[in-house]
């Protein structure tokens, strides 16, 4: 029989591309011969926009990068500016930051779990994960007054202190969440169809993962124990007790296991941060009120943080004015996406969808 290769464009409007990814696929029947991801449909050039804004205003754009883990994005930027402008941060603020960042990691992974279920044709886990995420968002709303774009972590601290009723809600969430997570996991983990769809699919070797600069859960699922929180501790990650889950196989199923386990570890960190939080100031008064436009720095600094998708870095260059000269963003999912062809070549269309969903790209951040 004669082989006929057809070109199919998956996306930019497609139910399972997590936004506006377009994948140009060459298909032989249902087998993928070549897959070329094309990005840029959500490009806003946040790097250029940042250049004529004051330092605190740029944090607003960071919120819009990875719109499911906004606190992590803000933290990356704020740490870079704090290094640049030599800002002192009170201890309590750092603990609060750690807590919200870890809670946000859970929220982000929950979104991922739900949408991965949708990609595989399961409708129900999506509702359960979003129910849990809603609780986290309500906690965040209690803290910052916004539901999605928080603008909570500020240069020199955090904007508002933890309110009184937060403790009860947080402890309620802390006690209930592991049970709910087990429930959600039981829908996936032992399901034979799910295992068939995930085991051995989308294999990424550790060498290739390193060559593609992949970080985060995708790298750890390939068996490399690399986490910025352990390797280059920032905030107080060296003072809390947690583990970095890894898996050996490098396939979709390992990525699933790693992320599921990471949620449990994050909850552990958030609880420790909440317990270890000292009383005291939660912001540096020098950089509040009119101090917002007095943040100045000369030189360059690069901050490395572990976002839910991997290493999120912000490279800020200041020229001594109160506006940054250049802001450069390293987005983790960008690199995970660049290895798509490596993972999906030779597999079926359905496998490509599953693989793309385990990479967990968020296009606000990939396209910037």
């Amino acid at each position, binding site marked *: 029989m004669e082989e006929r290769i057809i070109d199919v464009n998956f996306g930019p409007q497609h139910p399972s591309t997590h936004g506006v990814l377009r994948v140009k696929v060459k298909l032989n029947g249902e087998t993928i011969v070549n897959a070329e991801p094309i*990005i*840029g449909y959500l*490009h806003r*050039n946040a*790097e*250029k926009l940042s250049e004529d804004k004051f330092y605190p205003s740029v944090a607003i754009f960071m919120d819009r990068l990875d719109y499911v883990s906004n606190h992590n994005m803000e933290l990356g930027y704020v740490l*870079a500016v704090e*290094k*640049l402008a030599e800002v002192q941060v009170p201890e309590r603020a750092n603990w609060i930051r750690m807590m919200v960042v870890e809670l946000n990691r859970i929220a982000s992974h929950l979104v991922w779990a739900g949408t991965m279920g949708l990609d595989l044709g399961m409708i129900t886990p999506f509702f359960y994960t979003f129910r849990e995420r809603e609780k986290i968002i309500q906690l965040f709303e209690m803290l910052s007054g916004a539901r999605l774009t928080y603008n909570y972590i500020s240069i020199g601290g955090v904007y508002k202190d933890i309110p009184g009723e937060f403790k009860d809600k947080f402890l309620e969430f802390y006690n209930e969440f592991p049970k709910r997570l087990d429930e959600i996991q039981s829908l996936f983990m032992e399901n034979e169809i799910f295992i068939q769809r995930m085991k051995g699919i989308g294999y990424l070797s550790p060498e*290739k993962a*390193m*060559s*593609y*600069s*992949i970080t985060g859960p995708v790298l750890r699922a390939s068996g*490399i124990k*690399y986490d910025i929180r352990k*390797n*280059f501790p920032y905030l107080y990650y060296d003072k809390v007790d947690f583990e970095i889950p890894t898996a050996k196989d490098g396939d979709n199923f390992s990525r699933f296991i790693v992320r599921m386990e990471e949620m449990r570890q994050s909850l552990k960190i958030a609880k420790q941060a909440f317990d270890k939080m000292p009383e005291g100031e939660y912001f540096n008064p020098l950089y509040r009120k009119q101090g917002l436009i007095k943040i100045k*720095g*000369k*030189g*360059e*600094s*690069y*901050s*490395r943080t572990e976002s839910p998708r991997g*290493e999120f*870095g912000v*490279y800020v*260059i200041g020229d001594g004015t109160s506006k940054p*000269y*250049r802001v*450069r963003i*390293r987005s983790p999912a*960008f*690199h995970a996406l*660049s*290895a798509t062809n490596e993972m999906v070549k030779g597999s079926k269309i359905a496998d490509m969808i599953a693989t793309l969903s385990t990479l967990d790209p968020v296009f606000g951040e990939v*396209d*910037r």
Partner: protein
Amino acid sequence: MIIEKGKNKDGTDYILIDKESLIDTLSSLKRDGYNYLVLMSAVDYKKYREVVYHLSSYNENKIIVVKVRPEDDTLPSATPIWDSANWFERELYDLMGIKFTGHPNLKRIFLPEGWVGHPLRKDYDLSKEQFVNMNDDGTDRVSFDPKDGW
């Protein structure tokens, strides 16, 4: 050849090298354990442009910054050393207009083909709006006329 050595504000070491020794330096650094290309960025300092490589390691806790100033905006490509340099270099070409010789697929990555100018340059003309349309054969076309195309 190392022109300048120093420390950045965040405490990392940086070296400024010349364009000819870039590939040699990068591959020798990779042999020394810097096997992780964290970030490639380009900065427009008006008088000259600078390409910055952040290198780190997956096994050890170290980081180094390599800077190079390309005259006439061309640099040798680092794709043989790291696969991730592929998209990094496409991005730098797209937004800063730095051409990498030896790159397998040097196309714009974010903006449509045919876009006029490179937005991250400091002399980019922000006053003109550009409109993107699709030709009949599926390629992109850019024009300054808002009424053009559909």
